[in-house]
């Protein structure tokens, strides 16, 4: 963090800094997510680059004041391009002792802590598990601690509203937001406007929140507590119109866009599940796009209905998280057999079983890859950042429509709830992913096309004639996709199902050799998608990198940030990121064989590593972490340094590989 003095602002001194990481923490009922979200929006509109990490418990309201109930929101804002929500908060705003205790270990020495001192009574201190008041026992001496009686000041500020103290106290998160907004010189008008819109139905709440917010801001300005305020200049963004977007919203918009670009009506069959429900909520708002959403009776019905809709010519989508994927597996297998377009969106969370519903993980990759009985290959696309969820959704739908196949779209809890500024694309620049339905028979009925007696007859005629036939499994020679013939099309009546089908006719067939043909055809169709996706781009600025960092999904941010840090000190490291996990880009083998060391950081115990090792016999190094949070940049950075050291040692150079450097507190190298 560079600091310089700025004398332009009157009243209180304002210093310029280039970035800051702030974490708001309080009870899950304290409104910390709202506070963090508002601060993020103020910063986005101001023009900072930013990245966020909400972190909340699975319980809606755990007992107040306990560690279990602490909800936090971390936001990283800067005047330059950043990728991650920050390894550690420079500033912690703690609304009670439990919030302090749950988060203080993450604050580096010298960091700033702002507490609501009114919340530090004996009972709350004990409830948080402190033996003594941390504000007075000297345990916070390595931090700069600011004690602000936020409850009392909020109550005072809200007096004109006539709200009862219990109600007025609920505005204290807006006091905290006002205070931090002053501290970092955020614009305030959008928040006041937002309060009016959000709580407009309740005039007292609008007034109380607004007064508390202003009081917090003014308190910073006038109280002789803070030495100075700080400002972080706007980042240099490309020209364009921006919005701040979370992964789930971007994904939902991507699905709507995909329906429009594919010229097919969108049908979502879904069952509520954390952290995917927001996609169901968002899509349900946009019925004017012709979007139909069904909150199904269970996960199985969600995907079943989506598949039924696909049979009828709709873009069938189901959204869920890990436990829902378990339940949907049988229907995914049916979709593989039916060869109909279908999109399965998995917002990954910690598993197994119910696991960590609100915490992120990347541990469903192998499930998406292999989690079905029989030989049932399914393409997989993974989103890399919150805004990329939009494009990943379009790409996944493109593959589904073109190849008549179920497709997995993987996101995760971190991307789903995290946000970043997004330069809005021009709709005209989005790809045309439309497909066409079959309208005419495609066989001649004389047996030369293998159709047997499966004649399509006119309504007046009889079945099994010699007229033109429709072969529902006659494949496009280029894509190996079968025709999408939807009910309502005269002459193309046909039956499909989960029993093995005869090649071309689609009739039920138990023939052994035909079964092998079909298994291999389905596999070849999916493998062939590799011809239709971009080659893996490998960024190797010096051309002689010793280590390649290969990431997938949300690990993109920490991986790239780690690479940048290593490069800053002269490390020769290459970076590549996989969006397509099945099939892989066709040059992946060549890329991973090019480097002495390949590092794959991922939020599981080494799933992509397994696939890459198995496919290419390259002994990649796996950096893994399953703590419900994304990687810290430092974890990736340290590991890269360790691997660079190994390569140096291999070459007989005078460098000692520090094995310890590849083991971090958070992440494990295997």
């Amino acid at each position: 963090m560079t600091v310089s003095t700025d004398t332009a602002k009157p009243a209180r001194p304002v210093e310029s800094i280039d970035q800051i990481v702030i974490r708001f923490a309080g009870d899950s009922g304290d409104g910390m997510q709202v506070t963090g979200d508002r601060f993020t929006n103020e910063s986005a509109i101001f023009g900072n680059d930013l990245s966020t990490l909400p972190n909340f418990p699975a319980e809606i309201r755990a007992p107040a004041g306990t560690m279990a109930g602490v909800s936090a929101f971390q936001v990283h804002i800067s005047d330059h391009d950043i990728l991650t929500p920050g390894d550690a908060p420079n500033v912690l705003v703690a609304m009670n002792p439990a919030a302090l205790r749950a988060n203080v270990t993450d604050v580096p020495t010298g960091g700033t802590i702002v507490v609501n001192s009114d919340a530090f009574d004996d009972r709350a201190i004990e409830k948080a598990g402190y033996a003594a008041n941390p504000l007075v026992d000297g345990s916070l001496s390595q931090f700069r601690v600011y004690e602000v009686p936020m409850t009392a000041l909020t109550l005072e500020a809200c007096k004109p509203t006539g709200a009862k103290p219990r109600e007025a106290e609920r505005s204290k998160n807006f006091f905290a937001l006002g205070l931090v907004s002053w501290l970092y010189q955020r614009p305030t008008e959008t928040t006041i406007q937002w309060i009016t819109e959000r709580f407009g139905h309740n005039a007292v709440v609008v007034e109380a929140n607004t007064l508390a917010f202003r009081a917090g801001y003014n308190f910073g300005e006038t109280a002789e507590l803070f030495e100075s305020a700080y400002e972080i200049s706007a980042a240099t963004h490309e020209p364009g119109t921006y919005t701040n977007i979370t992964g789930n919203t971007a994904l939902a918009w991507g699905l709507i866009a995909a329906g429009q670009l594919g010229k097919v009506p969108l049908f979502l069959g879904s069952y509520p599940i954390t952290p995917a429900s927001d996609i169901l909520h968002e899509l349900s708002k946009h019925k004017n796009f012709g979007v139909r959403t069904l909150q199904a009776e269970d996960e199985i019905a969600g995907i079943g209905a989506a598949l039924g809709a696909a049979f009828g010519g709709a873009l069938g989508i189901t959204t869920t998280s890990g436990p829902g994927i378990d339940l949907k597996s049988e229907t995914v297998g049916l979709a593989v057999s039916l060869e109909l377009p279908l999109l399965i969106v998995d917002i990954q969370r910690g598993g197994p079983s119910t696991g960590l519903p609100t915490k992120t993980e990347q541990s469903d990759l192998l499930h998406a890859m292999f989690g079905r009985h029989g030989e049932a290959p399914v393409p997989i696309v993974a989103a890399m950042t919150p805004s990329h969820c939009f494009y990943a959704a379009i790409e996944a739908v493109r593959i589904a429509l073109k190849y008549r196949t179920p497709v997995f779209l993987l996101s995760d809890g971190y991307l789903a709830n995290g946000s970043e500024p997004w330069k809005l694309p021009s709709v005209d620049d989005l790809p045309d992913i439309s497909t066409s339905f079959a309208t005419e028979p495609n066989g001649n009925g004389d047996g030369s096309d293998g159709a047997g007696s499966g004649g399509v007859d006119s309504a007046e005629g009889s079945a099994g004639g010699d007229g033109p036939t429709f072969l529902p499994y006659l494949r496009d020679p280029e894509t190996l996709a079968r025709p999408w013939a939807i009910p309502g099309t005269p002459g193309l009546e046909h039956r499909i199902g989960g029993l093995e089908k005869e090649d071309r006719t689609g009739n039920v067939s138990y023939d052994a050799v035909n079964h092998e043909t079909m298994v291999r055809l389905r596999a070849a169709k999916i493998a062939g998608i590799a011809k239709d996706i971009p080659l893996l781009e490998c960024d190797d600025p010096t051309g002689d990198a010793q280590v390649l960092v290969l990431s997938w999904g949300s690990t993109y941010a920490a991986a790239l940030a780690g690479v940048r840090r290593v490069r800053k000190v002269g490390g020769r490291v290459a970076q590549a990121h996989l969006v397509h996990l099945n099939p892989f880009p066709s040059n992946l083998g060549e890329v991973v064989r090019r480097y002495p060391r390949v590092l794959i950081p991922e939020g599981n115990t080494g799933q992509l590593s397994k696939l890459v090792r198995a496919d290419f016999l390259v002994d990649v190094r796996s950096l893994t972490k399953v703590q419900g949070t994304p990687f810290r940049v430092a974890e990736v950075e340290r590991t890269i340094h360790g691997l660079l050291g190994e390569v140096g040692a291999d070459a007989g150079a005078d460098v000692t590989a520090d094995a310890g450097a590849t083991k971090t507190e958070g992440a494990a190298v295997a």
Partner: protein
Amino acid sequence: MTDVAVPITTRKDWSSDQDVRWCPGCGDYSVLAAVQFLLPELGVRRENTVFVSGIGCAARFPYYMNTYGMHSIHGRAPAVATGLAVTRPDLDVWVVTGDGDALSIGGNHLMHCLRRNVNLTILLFNNQIYGLTKGQYSPTSEVGKVTKSTPFGSLDTPFNPISLALGAEATFVARTHDMDRKHMMEVFRRAHAHKGAAFVEVYQNCNVFNDGAFEQVTGRAQREEMLIDLHHGEPIRFGGDGHLGVVMEAQGSLRIVEVDDVGEEALLVHDERREDPALAFALSRLSRGPYEPTPVGVFRAVERNDYGSLVDAQLLDAQARKGPGDLTALLNSGTTWTVD
């Protein structure tokens, strides 16, 4: 879809070229024939007709129909059909299922598509046994049933499919049996005409694993005295010369009486259109199993908006209020800022 008149068809037009592979003598053949004879009479088009099934013997049904069809997953046909019916209100969607498929593995989906009133015609082939897996007891098997999986007799109380459908808020509930094509065709015709979810239980004989399960009520010799054919607005009478009838007791339960003992005016008059399903429910409990006089025909037929129409009404309303979807406007719908 078009102005062209619906072509005149015969049963043959509705038969696919696939060999029917049910066991010789299976009751499924007569249900298939009833449907194939009925469809030419309904003035519908093959291309607009879809049969969706789950897994089981009955679930092979779509393969034998020269229409669109899907043989899906065990128990899930109502879910698959829901997605199709909701997105394609122009289609006639039929669900063919069995007692294991609909009431065991797929019980949840059946219940919910009935309460939603999805525009489907559901034919449940009830043979009180698992046929395709070779003879285990089913959720409609009588208590004490000795099968391969219950060598000492089954212990669980069976479902009454009609009671279950009524409890699940179904708007159309009926029963027929595989020994009477004319009756099947009339009940199927009514079910097809119903807007919303129409549920039909078909007593169907599995001559291999549960032969004669319904013989005591559907056998030609017994039928007259054992089947109570329900007719809307008429006193409920059955037996030779209608000598038997149904009366309602003070507590609401039903009893079978000799008409001569009570007089016709004392008989219960069937009212399939009653909003309150209590009477239909009582009728569904009149017989404890297919060995006592058993009502067949339409138990309940009431009007309620079907789910797909309600969904479409919301879409039209949203489009009327907000205009058709505009992607650019959607992307700009949050707080935006411009960098020059």
